[in-house]
Protein backbone atom coordinates (compact mmCIF):
# COMPACT_ATOMS: atom_id res chain seq x y z
CA UNK A 1 0.00 0.00 0.00
CA UNK A 2 1.68 3.14 -1.27
CA UNK A 3 0.92 5.32 1.77
CA UNK A 4 2.22 2.92 4.45
CA UNK A 5 5.99 2.96 4.96
CA UNK A 6 6.54 -0.28 6.94
CA UNK A 7 7.62 -3.56 5.42
CA UNK A 8 6.39 -6.74 7.12
CA UNK A 9 9.93 -7.31 8.29
CA UNK A 10 9.95 -3.91 10.02
CA UNK A 11 6.57 -4.55 11.59
CA UNK A 12 7.86 -7.79 13.10
CA UNK A 13 10.98 -6.06 14.36
CA UNK A 14 8.90 -3.33 16.03
CA UNK A 15 6.58 -5.85 17.67
CA UNK A 16 9.73 -7.48 19.06
CA UNK A 17 10.87 -4.20 20.64
CA UNK A 18 7.39 -3.74 22.12
CA UNK A 19 7.36 -7.33 23.36
CA UNK A 20 4.06 -8.16 21.71
CA UNK A 21 3.45 -11.53 20.10
CA UNK A 22 1.40 -10.09 17.26
CA UNK A 23 -0.54 -6.97 16.33
CA UNK A 24 -3.71 -8.28 17.98
CA UNK A 25 -1.90 -8.25 21.31
CA UNK A 26 -1.89 -4.45 21.08
CA UNK A 27 -5.69 -4.51 20.81
CA UNK A 28 -6.10 -6.60 23.97
CA UNK A 29 -8.38 -4.00 25.58
CA UNK A 30 -10.95 -4.46 22.81
CA UNK A 31 -13.72 -6.91 23.75
CA UNK A 32 -13.13 -10.15 21.82
CA UNK A 33 -16.61 -10.00 20.33
CA UNK A 34 -15.80 -6.70 18.59
CA UNK A 35 -12.25 -7.19 17.29
CA UNK A 36 -12.06 -8.09 13.60
CA UNK A 37 -15.27 -10.03 14.03
CA UNK A 38 -16.63 -9.12 10.61
CA UNK A 39 -16.03 -9.05 6.91
CA UNK A 40 -16.33 -5.47 5.74
CA UNK A 41 -17.07 -6.46 2.18
CA UNK A 42 -15.33 -3.32 0.94
CA UNK A 43 -13.07 -3.39 -2.12
CA UNK A 44 -9.33 -3.92 -1.64
CA UNK A 45 -6.70 -1.20 -2.06
CA UNK A 46 -6.39 0.18 -5.54
CA UNK A 47 -3.71 1.73 -7.77
CA UNK A 48 -3.81 5.45 -8.35
CA UNK A 49 -4.94 5.20 -11.97
CA UNK A 50 -7.95 3.05 -11.08
CA UNK A 51 -9.06 5.37 -8.29
CA UNK A 52 -8.68 8.28 -10.66
CA UNK A 53 -10.81 6.51 -13.28
CA UNK A 54 -13.53 5.84 -10.71
CA UNK A 55 -13.62 9.48 -9.57
CA UNK A 56 -13.52 10.84 -13.12
CA UNK A 57 -16.52 8.70 -13.99
CA UNK A 58 -18.47 10.23 -11.11
CA UNK A 59 -17.35 13.75 -11.99
CA UNK A 60 -18.35 13.11 -15.59
CA UNK A 61 -21.98 12.63 -14.57
CA UNK A 62 -22.16 16.24 -13.37
CA UNK A 63 -22.62 19.33 -15.47
CA UNK A 64 -19.84 21.79 -14.69
CA UNK A 65 -20.43 25.53 -14.70
CA UNK A 66 -18.08 26.03 -17.61
CA UNK A 67 -20.11 23.68 -19.82
CA UNK A 68 -22.61 26.36 -20.88
CA UNK A 69 -24.54 29.49 -19.94
CA UNK A 70 -24.73 29.67 -16.15
CA UNK A 71 -26.88 31.98 -14.00
CA UNK A 72 -27.05 30.11 -10.68
CA UNK A 73 -26.38 32.13 -7.52
CA UNK A 74 -28.56 32.36 -4.41
CA UNK A 75 -25.73 32.28 -1.90
CA UNK A 76 -22.86 30.77 -3.92
CA UNK A 77 -21.36 32.50 -6.93
CA UNK A 78 -19.31 31.40 -9.88
CA UNK A 79 -16.36 33.78 -10.19
CA UNK A 80 -12.97 33.44 -11.77
CA UNK A 81 -10.17 32.46 -9.37
CA UNK A 82 -6.65 33.40 -10.54
CA UNK A 83 -4.32 30.42 -11.13
CA UNK A 84 -1.90 31.89 -8.60
CA UNK A 85 -4.39 31.33 -5.78
CA UNK A 86 -4.77 27.61 -6.34
CA UNK A 87 -1.06 27.14 -6.86
CA UNK A 88 -0.18 28.88 -3.62
CA UNK A 89 -2.73 27.15 -1.40
CA UNK A 90 -1.39 23.78 -2.53
CA UNK A 91 2.08 24.51 -1.17
CA UNK A 92 2.87 21.94 1.51
CA UNK A 93 3.50 24.54 4.18
CA UNK A 94 -0.03 25.93 3.82
CA UNK A 95 -1.90 22.77 2.94
CA UNK A 96 -0.43 20.36 5.50
CA UNK A 97 0.03 22.54 8.57
CA UNK A 98 -2.36 22.43 11.49
CA UNK A 99 -3.91 25.17 13.62
CA UNK A 100 -1.00 27.43 14.66
CA UNK A 101 -0.78 26.34 18.28
CA UNK A 102 3.06 26.58 18.22
CA UNK A 103 3.50 30.16 17.06
CA UNK A 104 7.30 29.99 16.72
CA UNK A 105 6.94 27.59 13.78
CA UNK A 106 3.59 28.85 12.45
CA UNK A 107 4.28 32.49 11.67
CA UNK A 108 3.23 32.02 8.06
CA UNK A 109 -0.30 30.97 8.95
CA UNK A 110 -0.51 33.51 11.76
CA UNK A 111 0.64 36.49 9.72
CA UNK A 112 -1.75 35.47 6.96
CA UNK A 113 -4.63 35.34 9.44
CA UNK A 114 -3.67 38.78 10.75
CA UNK A 115 -3.73 40.09 7.19
CA UNK A 116 -7.03 38.30 6.55
CA UNK A 117 -8.61 39.84 9.65
CA UNK A 118 -7.43 43.26 8.49
CA UNK A 119 -8.90 42.74 5.01
CA UNK A 120 -12.25 41.65 6.42
CA UNK A 121 -12.39 44.55 8.88
CA UNK A 122 -11.69 47.01 6.06
CA UNK A 123 -14.20 45.43 3.69
CA UNK A 124 -17.01 45.46 6.21
CA UNK A 125 -16.08 48.79 7.74
CA UNK A 126 -15.92 47.22 11.20
CA UNK A 127 -13.31 47.44 13.97
CA UNK A 128 -12.32 43.78 14.21
CA UNK A 129 -12.83 40.49 12.39
CA UNK A 130 -12.13 36.92 13.43
CA UNK A 131 -10.06 34.30 11.63
CA UNK A 132 -13.17 32.89 9.83
CA UNK A 133 -16.15 30.69 10.59
CA UNK A 134 -17.36 27.51 8.86
CA UNK A 135 -19.54 29.45 6.41
CA UNK A 136 -22.02 32.30 6.18
CA UNK A 137 -25.01 30.29 7.42
CA UNK A 138 -23.43 28.95 10.61
CA UNK A 139 -21.78 32.34 11.11
CA UNK A 140 -25.24 33.92 11.09
CA UNK A 141 -26.45 31.51 13.77
CA UNK A 142 -23.37 32.29 15.86
CA UNK A 143 -23.96 36.03 15.43
CA UNK A 144 -27.51 35.65 16.72
CA UNK A 145 -26.24 33.87 19.82
CA UNK A 146 -23.55 36.51 20.26
CA UNK A 147 -26.19 39.26 20.15
CA UNK A 148 -28.14 37.50 22.87
CA UNK A 149 -25.06 37.36 25.10
CA UNK A 150 -24.28 41.02 24.45
CA UNK A 151 -27.74 42.40 25.07
CA UNK A 152 -28.93 39.81 27.59
CA UNK A 153 -32.17 39.87 25.62
CA UNK A 154 -33.69 36.98 23.71
CA UNK A 155 -35.90 38.18 20.88
CA UNK A 156 -34.44 37.78 17.40
CA UNK A 157 -36.16 38.95 14.21
CA UNK A 158 -35.06 37.57 10.83
CA UNK A 159 -35.86 39.56 7.72
CA UNK A 160 -37.94 37.95 4.99
CA UNK A 161 -35.05 38.68 2.66
CA UNK A 162 -32.63 36.45 4.56
CA UNK A 163 -31.42 33.38 2.63
CA UNK A 164 -33.88 30.61 3.58
CA UNK A 165 -31.06 28.17 4.35
CA UNK A 166 -29.56 30.71 6.76
CA UNK A 167 -32.96 31.13 8.40
CA UNK A 168 -33.30 27.35 8.71
CA UNK A 169 -29.85 27.05 10.32
CA UNK A 170 -30.73 29.75 12.86
CA UNK A 171 -33.96 27.83 13.55
CA UNK A 172 -32.05 24.59 14.13
CA UNK A 173 -29.57 26.32 16.45
CA UNK A 174 -32.39 27.94 18.45
CA UNK A 175 -34.69 24.89 18.34
CA UNK A 176 -38.17 25.45 19.83
CA UNK A 177 -37.39 29.02 20.65
CA UNK A 178 -40.46 31.20 20.99
CA UNK A 179 -38.29 34.31 20.89
CA UNK A 180 -37.28 33.73 17.27
CA UNK A 181 -39.44 35.56 14.72
CA UNK A 182 -38.94 34.69 11.05
CA UNK A 183 -40.74 37.11 8.76
CA UNK A 184 -42.32 35.60 5.66
CA UNK A 185 -40.51 35.71 2.35
CA UNK A 186 -40.33 39.13 0.74
CA UNK A 187 -39.52 38.61 -2.94
CA UNK A 188 -40.57 42.14 -3.82
CA UNK A 189 -38.04 43.60 -1.41
CA UNK A 190 -40.80 44.68 0.92
CA UNK A 191 -39.94 44.74 4.61
CA UNK A 192 -41.77 45.37 7.82
CA UNK A 193 -38.94 44.31 10.11
CA UNK A 194 -38.73 47.73 11.74
CA UNK A 195 -42.26 47.25 13.17
CA UNK A 196 -41.07 44.20 15.09
CA UNK A 197 -38.32 45.84 17.12
CA UNK A 198 -39.16 46.34 20.79
CA UNK A 199 -37.44 46.57 24.16
CA UNK A 200 -37.02 42.77 24.32
CA UNK A 201 -35.27 42.57 20.96
CA UNK A 202 -31.66 41.42 21.01
CA UNK A 203 -31.08 41.80 17.29
CA UNK A 204 -32.60 42.09 13.86
CA UNK A 205 -30.96 40.23 10.99
CA UNK A 206 -30.98 41.81 7.53
CA UNK A 207 -29.31 40.53 4.37
CA UNK A 208 -28.20 42.89 1.61
CA UNK A 209 -28.27 42.33 -1.30
CA UNK A 210 -31.09 40.13 -0.03
CA UNK A 211 -31.97 36.63 -1.16
CA UNK A 212 -34.00 38.04 -4.07
CA UNK A 213 -31.31 40.54 -5.02
CA UNK A 214 -32.82 43.73 -3.56
CA UNK A 215 -30.57 46.21 -1.75
CA UNK A 216 -31.76 46.99 1.76
CA UNK A 217 -31.56 50.26 3.66
CA UNK A 218 -29.16 49.56 6.51
CA UNK A 219 -29.07 53.09 7.88
CA UNK A 220 -32.77 53.10 8.68
CA UNK A 221 -32.50 49.61 10.18
CA UNK A 222 -29.52 50.49 12.36
CA UNK A 223 -31.18 53.62 13.69
CA UNK A 224 -34.43 51.81 14.46
CA UNK A 225 -32.63 48.94 16.21
CA UNK A 226 -30.39 51.20 18.24
CA UNK A 227 -33.32 53.35 19.34
CA UNK A 228 -34.64 50.30 21.20
CA UNK A 229 -31.26 49.07 22.42
CA UNK A 230 -31.20 46.23 19.89
CA UNK A 231 -28.33 45.27 17.59
CA UNK A 232 -28.24 45.15 13.81
CA UNK A 233 -26.73 41.99 12.30
CA UNK A 234 -25.99 42.41 8.60
CA UNK A 235 -25.63 39.31 6.41
CA UNK A 236 -23.94 39.39 3.01
CA UNK A 237 -23.87 36.33 0.78
CA UNK A 238 -22.20 38.02 -2.20
CA UNK A 239 -19.07 39.64 -0.81
CA UNK A 240 -18.10 41.10 -4.20
CA UNK A 241 -20.95 43.59 -3.71
CA UNK A 242 -18.79 45.39 -1.14
CA UNK A 243 -16.65 46.64 -4.01
CA UNK A 244 -19.45 49.01 -5.02
CA UNK A 245 -21.72 49.30 -1.99
CA UNK A 246 -21.08 51.26 1.17
CA UNK A 247 -19.67 49.09 3.95
CA UNK A 248 -22.24 48.02 6.58
CA UNK A 249 -20.04 49.50 9.29
CA UNK A 250 -20.58 52.96 7.81
CA UNK A 251 -24.33 52.56 8.37
CA UNK A 252 -23.98 51.47 12.00
CA UNK A 253 -24.03 47.66 11.80
CA UNK A 254 -23.07 45.93 15.05
CA UNK A 255 -22.15 42.50 13.67
CA UNK A 256 -21.48 41.70 10.04
CA UNK A 257 -21.51 38.12 8.75
CA UNK A 258 -20.63 37.26 5.17
CA UNK A 259 -20.12 34.23 3.01
CA UNK A 260 -16.61 34.67 1.61
CA UNK A 261 -16.76 31.96 -1.07
CA UNK A 262 -16.93 34.43 -3.98
CA UNK A 263 -13.34 35.47 -3.42
CA UNK A 264 -10.75 32.74 -3.98
CA UNK A 265 -13.01 29.71 -3.60
CA UNK A 266 -14.69 27.48 -6.17
CA UNK A 267 -18.37 26.47 -6.01
CA UNK A 268 -17.53 22.95 -4.77
CA UNK A 269 -21.22 21.96 -4.67
CA UNK A 270 -21.63 23.93 -1.44
CA UNK A 271 -18.42 23.56 0.55
CA UNK A 272 -15.90 24.08 1.90
CA UNK A 273 -16.64 27.80 2.09
CA UNK A 274 -15.70 30.37 4.71
CA UNK A 275 -17.69 32.62 6.98
CA UNK A 276 -16.52 36.17 7.59
CA UNK A 277 -17.44 37.76 10.90
CA UNK A 278 -16.68 41.29 12.05
CA UNK A 279 -17.88 43.44 14.89
CA UNK A 280 -17.25 46.45 17.08
CA UNK A 281 -14.14 46.55 19.24
CA UNK A 282 -16.10 46.53 22.49
CA UNK A 283 -17.77 43.23 21.53
CA UNK A 284 -14.58 41.21 20.91
CA UNK A 285 -14.85 39.07 24.00
CA UNK A 286 -18.28 37.81 23.02
CA UNK A 287 -17.23 37.05 19.44
CA UNK A 288 -16.87 33.33 18.67
CA UNK A 289 -14.02 31.86 16.64
CA UNK A 290 -10.29 32.19 16.60
CA UNK A 291 -8.46 35.49 16.72
CA UNK A 292 -4.89 36.25 15.74
CA UNK A 293 -3.07 39.12 17.43
CA UNK A 294 0.22 40.94 17.08
CA UNK A 295 2.89 40.71 19.75
CA UNK A 296 6.69 40.43 20.05
CA UNK A 297 9.03 37.53 20.72
CA UNK A 298 11.68 37.25 23.42
CA UNK A 299 14.06 39.26 21.25
CA UNK A 300 11.55 42.00 20.53
CA UNK A 301 10.79 40.91 16.96
CA UNK A 302 7.24 41.36 15.74
CA UNK A 303 5.29 38.13 15.68
CA UNK A 304 1.73 36.83 15.80
CA UNK A 305 -0.15 34.48 18.12
CA UNK A 306 -3.65 33.13 18.58
CA UNK A 307 -5.06 35.26 21.35
CA UNK A 308 -8.06 35.72 23.63
CA UNK A 309 -8.36 31.95 23.45
CA UNK A 310 -9.90 31.82 26.90
CA UNK A 311 -13.21 32.43 25.12
CA UNK A 312 -12.86 29.09 23.40
CA UNK A 313 -14.02 25.61 24.21
CA UNK A 314 -10.65 23.98 24.85
CA UNK A 315 -10.22 26.21 27.89
CA UNK A 316 -13.68 27.31 28.96
CA UNK A 317 -15.33 23.96 28.21
CA UNK A 318 -19.02 24.32 29.08
CA UNK A 319 -18.62 28.10 29.51
CA UNK A 320 -17.23 28.69 26.03
CA UNK A 321 -18.81 31.31 23.75
CA UNK A 322 -19.52 28.60 21.16
CA UNK A 323 -18.51 25.05 20.41
CA UNK A 324 -16.66 26.04 17.23
CA UNK A 325 -13.17 24.53 17.08
CA UNK A 326 -11.94 24.34 13.51
CA UNK A 327 -12.14 27.48 11.40
CA UNK A 328 -11.84 27.56 7.64
CA UNK A 329 -8.11 28.23 7.40
CA UNK A 330 -7.27 27.19 3.85
CA UNK A 331 -10.39 28.89 2.42
CA UNK A 332 -9.42 32.03 4.35
CA UNK A 333 -5.96 31.80 2.78
CA UNK A 334 -7.49 31.53 -0.70
CA UNK A 335 -9.71 34.52 0.08
CA UNK A 336 -6.78 36.54 1.37
CA UNK A 337 -4.52 35.79 -1.61
CA UNK A 338 -7.25 36.57 -4.13
CA UNK A 339 -8.10 39.80 -2.30
CA UNK A 340 -4.41 40.77 -2.21
CA UNK A 341 -4.17 40.13 -5.95
CA UNK A 342 -7.22 42.28 -6.57
CA UNK A 343 -6.35 45.12 -4.23
CA UNK A 344 -8.74 48.01 -3.95
CA UNK A 345 -8.37 48.91 -7.62
CA UNK A 346 -9.05 45.39 -8.88
CA UNK A 347 -11.80 44.68 -6.39
CA UNK A 348 -13.67 47.81 -7.39
CA UNK A 349 -13.28 46.94 -11.08
CA UNK A 350 -14.51 43.40 -10.41
CA UNK A 351 -17.58 44.67 -8.60
CA UNK A 352 -18.36 47.18 -11.32
CA UNK A 353 -18.01 44.49 -13.99
CA UNK A 354 -20.43 42.25 -12.08
CA UNK A 355 -22.96 45.03 -11.78
CA UNK A 356 -22.60 45.96 -15.44
CA UNK A 357 -23.20 42.34 -16.48
CA UNK A 358 -26.24 42.17 -14.19
CA UNK A 359 -27.68 45.39 -15.63
CA UNK A 360 -27.37 43.89 -19.09
CA UNK A 361 -29.06 40.68 -17.93
CA UNK A 362 -31.87 42.58 -16.21
CA UNK A 363 -32.63 44.67 -19.28
CA UNK A 364 -32.58 41.62 -21.53
CA UNK A 365 -34.86 39.62 -19.22
CA UNK A 366 -37.31 42.48 -18.86
CA UNK A 367 -37.73 42.46 -22.63
CA UNK A 368 -38.73 38.76 -22.73
CA UNK A 369 -42.51 38.33 -23.08
CA UNK A 370 -43.96 36.62 -20.01
CA UNK A 371 -41.14 37.76 -17.73
CA UNK A 372 -41.52 40.37 -14.98
CA UNK A 373 -38.42 41.69 -13.29
CA UNK A 374 -39.13 42.24 -9.58
CA UNK A 375 -36.06 44.32 -8.72
CA UNK A 376 -35.77 48.08 -8.69
CA UNK A 377 -32.34 47.75 -7.14
CA UNK A 378 -29.79 44.94 -7.31
CA UNK A 379 -26.07 44.25 -7.40
CA UNK A 380 -25.47 41.13 -9.52
CA UNK A 381 -28.57 39.08 -8.79
CA UNK A 382 -32.29 39.52 -9.47
CA UNK A 383 -35.63 37.77 -9.32
CA UNK A 384 -38.09 37.34 -12.17
CA UNK A 385 -41.68 36.16 -12.19
CA UNK A 386 -42.57 33.89 -15.09
CA UNK A 387 -45.90 32.68 -16.40
CA UNK A 388 -45.23 29.02 -15.59
CA UNK A 389 -44.02 27.13 -12.51
CA UNK A 390 -40.36 28.07 -12.11
CA UNK A 391 -39.17 24.52 -11.43
CA UNK A 392 -40.46 23.36 -14.80
CA UNK A 393 -38.93 26.30 -16.63
CA UNK A 394 -35.52 25.80 -15.01
CA UNK A 395 -35.60 22.06 -15.76
CA UNK A 396 -36.57 22.70 -19.37
CA UNK A 397 -33.73 25.21 -19.79
CA UNK A 398 -31.28 22.76 -18.17
CA UNK A 399 -32.30 20.22 -20.79
CA UNK A 400 -31.33 22.83 -23.39
CA UNK A 401 -27.92 23.21 -21.76
CA UNK A 402 -28.63 26.45 -19.89
CA UNK A 403 -28.45 26.61 -16.08
CA UNK A 404 -30.94 29.42 -15.69
CA UNK A 405 -30.93 30.12 -11.99
CA UNK A 406 -32.67 28.88 -8.88
CA UNK A 407 -36.45 28.41 -8.55
CA UNK A 408 -37.25 30.24 -5.30
CA UNK A 409 -39.68 27.47 -4.39
CA UNK A 410 -36.79 25.01 -4.10
CA UNK A 411 -35.87 26.83 -0.88
CA UNK A 412 -39.37 28.07 0.05
CA UNK A 413 -41.64 25.14 -0.87
CA UNK A 414 -44.34 26.14 1.60
CA UNK A 415 -44.75 29.66 0.27
CA UNK A 416 -47.17 29.70 -2.71
CA UNK A 417 -46.02 33.20 -3.68
CA UNK A 418 -42.63 31.88 -4.74
CA UNK A 419 -43.86 29.19 -7.16
CA UNK A 420 -43.21 31.23 -10.32
CA UNK A 421 -40.04 33.01 -9.22
CA UNK A 422 -36.55 32.41 -10.57
CA UNK A 423 -33.46 33.98 -9.00
CA UNK A 424 -30.64 34.65 -11.47
CA UNK A 425 -27.10 35.91 -10.99
CA UNK A 426 -24.59 37.37 -13.42
CA UNK A 427 -20.86 37.59 -12.73
CA UNK A 428 -17.79 38.68 -14.65
CA UNK A 429 -17.96 35.26 -16.36
CA UNK A 430 -21.36 35.94 -17.92
CA UNK A 431 -21.04 36.80 -21.63
CA UNK A 432 -23.40 38.64 -23.94
CA UNK A 433 -23.84 35.37 -25.82
CA UNK A 434 -24.88 33.61 -22.59
CA UNK A 435 -27.51 36.28 -21.96
CA UNK A 436 -28.81 36.08 -25.50
CA UNK A 437 -29.03 32.27 -25.33
CA UNK A 438 -30.89 32.42 -22.03
CA UNK A 439 -33.42 34.98 -23.20
CA UNK A 440 -34.09 33.22 -26.49
CA UNK A 441 -34.66 29.89 -24.76
CA UNK A 442 -36.77 31.49 -22.05
CA UNK A 443 -38.97 33.19 -24.63
CA UNK A 444 -39.59 29.85 -26.34
CA UNK A 445 -40.39 28.04 -23.09
CA UNK A 446 -42.82 30.72 -22.02
CA UNK A 447 -44.71 30.87 -25.29
Amino acid sequence: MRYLPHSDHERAEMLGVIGAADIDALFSAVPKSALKSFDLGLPAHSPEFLVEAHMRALAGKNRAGADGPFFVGAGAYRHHVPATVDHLIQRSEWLTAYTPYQPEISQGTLQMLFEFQTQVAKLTGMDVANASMYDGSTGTAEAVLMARRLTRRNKIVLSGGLHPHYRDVVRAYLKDDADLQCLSASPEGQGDILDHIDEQTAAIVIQTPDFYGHLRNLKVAADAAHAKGALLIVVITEVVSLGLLEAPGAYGADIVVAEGQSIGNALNFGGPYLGLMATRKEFIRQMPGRLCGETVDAEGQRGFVLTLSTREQHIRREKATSNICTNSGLCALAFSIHMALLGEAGFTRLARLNHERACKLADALAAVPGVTLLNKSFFNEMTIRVAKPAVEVVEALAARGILAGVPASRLEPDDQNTANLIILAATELTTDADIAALCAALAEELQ
Partner: protein
Amino acid sequence: MTTKFTPDHEYIRVEGSTGIVGITNYAQEALGDIVFVELPSVGKVLKKGDEAAVVESVKAASEIYAPVAGTVTEVNEALSSEPGLINADPEAGGWIYKIAISNAGELDGLLDAAGYADLTK
Protein backbone atom coordinates in the same frame (compact mmCIF):
# COMPACT_ATOMS: atom_id res chain seq x y z
CA MET B 1 -10.99 44.28 60.34
CA THR B 2 -10.63 40.63 59.49
CA THR B 3 -9.87 38.66 56.31
CA LYS B 4 -11.43 35.32 55.50
CA PHE B 5 -10.73 32.86 52.68
CA THR B 6 -12.59 30.32 50.56
CA PRO B 7 -11.16 26.97 49.48
CA ASP B 8 -11.54 28.35 45.93
CA HIS B 9 -8.84 30.95 46.66
CA GLU B 10 -10.98 34.05 47.07
CA TYR B 11 -10.41 36.36 50.01
CA ILE B 12 -12.92 38.69 51.65
CA ARG B 13 -11.64 41.52 53.81
CA VAL B 14 -14.40 42.61 56.17
CA GLU B 15 -14.68 46.30 57.02
CA GLY B 16 -17.82 46.83 59.03
CA SER B 17 -20.72 45.56 56.95
CA THR B 18 -18.74 45.70 53.72
CA GLY B 19 -16.57 42.93 52.29
CA ILE B 20 -13.73 43.55 49.82
CA VAL B 21 -13.28 40.53 47.54
CA GLY B 22 -10.32 39.44 45.42
CA ILE B 23 -8.14 36.43 44.73
CA THR B 24 -5.26 35.36 46.94
CA ASN B 25 -1.58 35.72 46.19
CA TYR B 26 -1.39 31.94 45.85
CA ALA B 27 -4.12 32.06 43.20
CA GLN B 28 -2.55 34.84 41.15
CA GLU B 29 0.78 33.00 41.15
CA ALA B 30 -0.87 29.84 39.94
CA LEU B 31 -2.87 31.61 37.23
CA GLY B 32 0.03 33.65 35.91
CA ASP B 33 -0.31 36.99 34.18
CA ILE B 34 -3.90 38.16 34.36
CA VAL B 35 -4.98 39.68 31.03
CA PHE B 36 -8.65 40.45 31.56
CA VAL B 37 -11.15 40.84 34.37
CA GLU B 38 -14.90 40.66 33.84
CA LEU B 39 -16.33 42.77 36.66
CA PRO B 40 -19.82 42.39 38.13
CA SER B 41 -22.26 45.27 37.78
CA VAL B 42 -22.85 47.47 40.78
CA GLY B 43 -26.15 46.60 42.43
CA LYS B 44 -25.96 42.93 41.46
CA VAL B 45 -27.42 40.73 44.19
CA LEU B 46 -25.35 37.62 44.86
CA LYS B 47 -26.01 34.45 46.77
CA LYS B 48 -23.08 32.71 48.43
CA GLY B 49 -21.32 30.71 45.73
CA ASP B 50 -22.73 32.69 42.80
CA GLU B 51 -20.40 33.57 39.96
CA ALA B 52 -19.45 37.19 40.56
CA ALA B 53 -16.54 37.87 38.22
CA VAL B 54 -14.17 36.17 35.81
CA VAL B 55 -10.40 36.56 35.70
CA GLU B 56 -8.54 35.45 32.63
CA SER B 57 -4.89 34.65 32.18
CA VAL B 58 -3.42 33.67 28.83
CA LYS B 59 -4.27 30.02 29.30
CA ALA B 60 -7.13 29.94 31.77
CA ALA B 61 -10.37 31.63 32.68
CA SER B 62 -11.49 31.33 36.27
CA GLU B 63 -14.80 32.25 37.80
CA ILE B 64 -14.71 34.23 41.02
CA TYR B 65 -17.52 33.12 43.30
CA ALA B 66 -19.22 35.18 45.99
CA PRO B 67 -17.81 34.06 49.36
CA VAL B 68 -20.96 35.32 51.10
CA ALA B 69 -24.34 36.66 50.02
CA GLY B 70 -24.82 40.38 49.47
CA THR B 71 -25.09 43.22 47.00
CA VAL B 72 -22.22 44.56 44.92
CA THR B 73 -21.57 48.18 45.96
CA GLU B 74 -18.41 49.03 44.07
CA VAL B 75 -16.05 47.46 41.52
CA ASN B 76 -12.36 48.09 40.90
CA GLU B 77 -12.56 49.90 37.55
CA ALA B 78 -8.78 50.18 37.41
CA LEU B 79 -8.65 46.47 36.55
CA SER B 80 -10.32 47.15 33.19
CA SER B 81 -7.24 48.89 31.88
CA GLU B 82 -4.66 47.32 34.21
CA PRO B 83 -5.58 43.70 34.96
CA GLY B 84 -1.96 43.13 36.02
CA LEU B 85 -2.78 44.87 39.30
CA ILE B 86 -4.04 41.49 40.47
CA ASN B 87 -0.58 40.03 39.93
CA ALA B 88 1.25 43.00 41.40
CA ASP B 89 -0.81 43.44 44.53
CA PRO B 90 -3.72 41.00 44.80
CA GLU B 91 -4.85 41.86 48.28
CA ALA B 92 -4.67 45.68 48.01
CA GLY B 93 -4.66 47.43 44.60
CA GLY B 94 -5.89 44.23 42.93
CA TRP B 95 -9.20 43.92 44.79
CA ILE B 96 -12.10 43.06 42.48
CA TYR B 97 -15.39 44.17 44.04
CA LYS B 98 -16.99 45.33 47.29
CA ILE B 99 -20.09 43.69 48.65
CA ALA B 100 -22.64 44.79 51.26
CA ILE B 101 -22.78 41.62 53.34
CA SER B 102 -26.38 40.53 53.92
CA ASN B 103 -25.69 37.77 56.41
CA ALA B 104 -22.55 38.19 58.51
CA GLY B 105 -23.10 34.71 59.90
CA GLU B 106 -21.90 33.22 56.59
CA LEU B 107 -18.42 34.56 57.33
CA ASP B 108 -18.05 32.00 60.09
CA GLY B 109 -18.12 29.20 57.57
CA LEU B 110 -15.03 30.53 55.75
CA LEU B 111 -11.37 29.75 56.42
CA ASP B 112 -9.18 31.99 58.54
CA ALA B 113 -5.63 32.86 57.55
CA ALA B 114 -4.15 29.82 59.28
CA GLY B 115 -6.74 27.49 57.78
CA TYR B 116 -6.11 28.82 54.28
CA ALA B 117 -2.36 28.59 54.76
CA ASP B 118 -2.81 24.90 55.65
CA LEU B 119 -4.84 24.36 52.50
CA THR B 120 -2.19 25.78 50.20
CA LYS B 121 0.82 24.13 51.81
